């Protein structure tokens, strides 16, 4: 396989608080290749959005990258500050946020917003930029793009707005798009449209996509590989089919079993006892051990397990025998 578009190595994010330093992202590593969709899944507070924001340099202080490296197309980007980072955003990395209404400027027409982005990043004139804007809207499936270019965001429905946001993220032809819960605010039928759109754009242009979501169903349909996060650490990382059908980490296993989709026909859903530990009160050893049905002494003592070449960050991964 060729060199990955994005390569994150041992990334950690720290936030100093009164209760001490907390690590919302702790030693996370993954690659995304050209044309690949990497799903990042986890419950709220697992650090999945924080990891995405770290890549695009949108951590709000006092949160900061405290360790690790981020490489984009062979260039190291985790040190970049101010203007250099600003030029990278939009040009090399596009971003799609959850709520399409708050990520568009209500006072500018969508044509203005698109042309502004294009002109900021590409050396072309206003006319040419407008032409590109129409082409971009056309590409994301907005009917009558040439007529809608002078519309304001409020004149679009939720699904159409999210298409505009995707057009905005893609208009400067970035090599990586980070989509943070792009379909969570949308209805099921519109969600299916947006997923299909993301997938076809990714395939046609070879854009790498990091798809952050909590919805296992969306991951199953859209992603090629999936990274499961728990309490700021990677729990499991492999192809979607393997992780979802033969999970090796007990957390992934529990998560899968507790979705109503997976336990059809049973009267009770599988329950993971307890809840995710607070970042200020992280247990020693594996972060999942207090809730893990298979925990043993080794799990309770430091250091915590890492993926390290394998698939799951677990001392005693499930299904070992079956896999061999």
């Amino acid at each position, binding site marked *: 396989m060729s060199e990955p578009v994005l390569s994150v190595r041992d990334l950690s994010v720290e936030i100093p608080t009164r209760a001490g330093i907390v690590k919302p992202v702790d030693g996370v590593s993954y690659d995304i290749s050209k044309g690949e969709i990497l799903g990042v899944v986890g419950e709220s507070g697992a650090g999945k959005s924080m990891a995405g924001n770290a890549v695009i340099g949108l951590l709000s202080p006092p949160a900061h990258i405290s360790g690790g490296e981020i490489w984009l197309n062979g260039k190291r980007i985790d040190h970049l500050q101010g203007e250099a980072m600003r030029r990278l955003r939009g040009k090399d990395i596009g971003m799609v946020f959850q709520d399409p209404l708050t990520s568009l400027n209500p006072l500018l027409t969508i044509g203005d917003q698109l042309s502004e982005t294009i002109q900021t990043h590409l050396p072309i004139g206003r006319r040419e930029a407008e032409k590109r804007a129409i082409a971009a809207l056309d590409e994301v499936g907005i009917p009558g793009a040439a007529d809608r270019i002078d519309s304001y965001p409020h004149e679009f429905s939720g699904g159409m707005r999210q298409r505009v946001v995707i057009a905005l993220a893609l208009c400067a032809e970035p090599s990586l798009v980070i989509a943070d819960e792009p379909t969570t605010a949308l209805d099921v*039928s519109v969600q299916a449209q947006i997923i299909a759109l993301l997938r076809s754009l990714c395939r046609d242009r070879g854009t790498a996509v990091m798809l952050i979501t909590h919805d296992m169903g*969306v991951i199953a349909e859209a992603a090629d590989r999936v990274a499961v996060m728990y309490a700021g650490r990677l729990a499991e990382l492999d192809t979607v089919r393997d992780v979802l059908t033969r999970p090796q980490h007990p957390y992934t296993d529990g998560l899968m079993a507790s979705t109503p989709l997976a336990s059809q026909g049973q009267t009770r859903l599988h329950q993971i006892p307890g809840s995710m530990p607070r970042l200020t009160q992280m247990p020693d050893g594996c972060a999942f051990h207090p809730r893990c049905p298979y925990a043993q002494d080794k799990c309770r003592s430091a250091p915590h397990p890492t993926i390290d070449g394998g698939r799951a960050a677990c001392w005693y991964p499930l299904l070992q025998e079956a896999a061999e």
Partner: protein
Amino acid sequence: MNAYVKIKGLTRIFDVSKPWLNRLVERRSKAFLTAVSEVDLQIEERTTYALVGESGSGKSTIGRMLVGLLSPTKGEVEIEGVNLATETDVAKIASVRSNIQMIFQDPFASLNPRWRVRDIIVEPVASKGEDTNGLAERLLEQVGLHPGDAGKFPHEFSGGQRQRICIARALASNPRLIVCDEPTSALDVSVQAQVLNLMSDLKDDLGLTYLLITHDLTVVRHMADRIGVLYLGRLVEEADPKSLFETPKHPYTQMLLEAAPRMDGFGREVDPPQGEIPDPIDPPKGCAFHPRCPIATDICRQERPQSRRVGDALVACHLAE
């Protein structure tokens, strides 16, 4: 089995007009939004009836009319055989009303942050002037929290724990019907499983009847005994979970099920559904679904279909078979 709730021809129209001066200056007429349009349904005692639909389909409006937070524009709501709109006996209305409780979607917004958990939970009973000694502690234990939590404030709890507090509050007055409006939409998957299991247990232990309002088809399939699918304020299909999920009859239900993400749908190529929900202020003539329907014919554009029995299901479609 007898019907605990009977809803007939239920309609709710909201006036969404601009203020009169704007209408005068801009020469606009009044605008009305039909949120719920002639819905008939019955909920059997000790069952879970689920209403599903996308945003704007009127599912929450029906729930609100059932508990009395909104009054119907037309139609009847009959609970325990008492028609709440026409009944004149105040004591009778009060006794029926105290048998209905509601759980809301957002456990962060539905608990008063300045009240202690004990006061929040006992409020439905205390407001009637009844004895609440030890009630909060007993209920907290019932929903899986610690009785000692009664003295705490809501901010000390996580989302799932707060939803348990909401459930405890709903149980305080010994209700028979609980309207659950998206009870787990704000929760994570593993917490959702805990809350759904708790709801099933309570239903069996206390003989509760649920009206479950949600957009999540997977939750519905797991929880419901009977499902009503809403589209633009109209009930388009009603069936039990097995026949609804295995042999959906209405084209909208078929589209919805096809579009829903599947756990086993690795790299599944679906033709995403075309179009979006039309503007409810100006709904399409005839069948509300016809502009998006793949099999629509002339009659669908002219005449609104009536609900009819097809197999095990009630379907409002001219062509379903």
